[in-house]
């Protein structure tokens, strides 16, 4: 398997996003979970259809990028289109109050339990 995006010419990426820049793509984190609200339909852009098919179950942005073999920034642009059209919803990770603040101990306890049960 080749690295995603490795063989993509800038022109292909330009086409995929309709030549647009980052739009509201900053709303998405690598691990924002995306959920489809609609089924893929004929006539939609193929990337949009693929995303809607994948996201019938919650799917992290980074998994969408790996599956579509597109850079994360391009996937975020595609997702902001779908979000704006109401075709997907997003479950964002809980932001930490500040860059250097620490996670909630209750969350960490949960993580510890999950890891010990592995």
């Amino acid at each position, binding site marked *: 398997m080749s690295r995603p995006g490795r063989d993509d010419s800038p022109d292909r990426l*330009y086409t995929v996003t309709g030549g647009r820049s980052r739009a509201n793509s900053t709303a998405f984190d690598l691990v924002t979970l995306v959920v489809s609200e609609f089924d893929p339909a004929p006539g939609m852009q193929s990337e949009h259809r693929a995303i*809607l098919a994948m996201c019938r179950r919650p799917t992290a942005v980074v998994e969408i990028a*790996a*599956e579509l073999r597109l850079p994360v920034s391009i996937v975020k642009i595609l997702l902001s289109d779908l979000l704006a059209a109401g075709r997907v919803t997003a479950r964002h990770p809980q932001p*930490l109050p500040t860059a250097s603040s620490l996670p909630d101990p209750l*969350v*960490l*306890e949960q993580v*510890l339990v999950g890891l010990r049960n592995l």
Partner: protein
Amino acid sequence: MDSAISDSAADRTPLLSTTTSALKIVVVGGFGVGKTTMVRSVSEIRPLNTEETMTQAGQDVDDNSAVRSKTATTVAFDFGRISLNAETVLYLFGAPGQERFWFLWDRLFAGTLGAVVLVDIRRLADSWYAIDRLEQHGTPFIVARNDFGGPKHSLDQIRDALDLAPQVPLIECDVRERESSKHVLITLVQYLYTLSTGDAQRP
């Protein structure tokens, strides 16, 4: 069915539909130190690889000219995941530690719970830069010495060589072993817990 559109949907393992929140931990270190091996040994999915494209200024593909002129820098990273319970999934990212990578850190790994710095005793210098930057960012981290054989150095010697603060956990591991990788992650999260409950000084 989920596989109606994409053929490759068949080999994907989707998350539970009850999953509502995702967390992340980053494993950082030099080339060949065992990042991918560690992700693989604990991940419930085969590690996947993707990349991010950004300009040197640390922006996304800013305008059409940036996309078209190939001035953007790409960084490849791999990842795996662990479903912790019905609602929460933990993503593990394996990320290169070299200098050219670090302007991406904020964008890619903001909000990470913490980091594991993997070190190979034969190439300790590979990790100096990563440790500097984690300290600067205030991202809590532990250091795990991956066992590639060779001369035995005491952990104290390694701590000295890395100039690690006394409270930063330093452990040995062999990330080819799932139990060992699990132990590394548990050590990090226990450390984060200690920090978050105020039982220790911030690194």
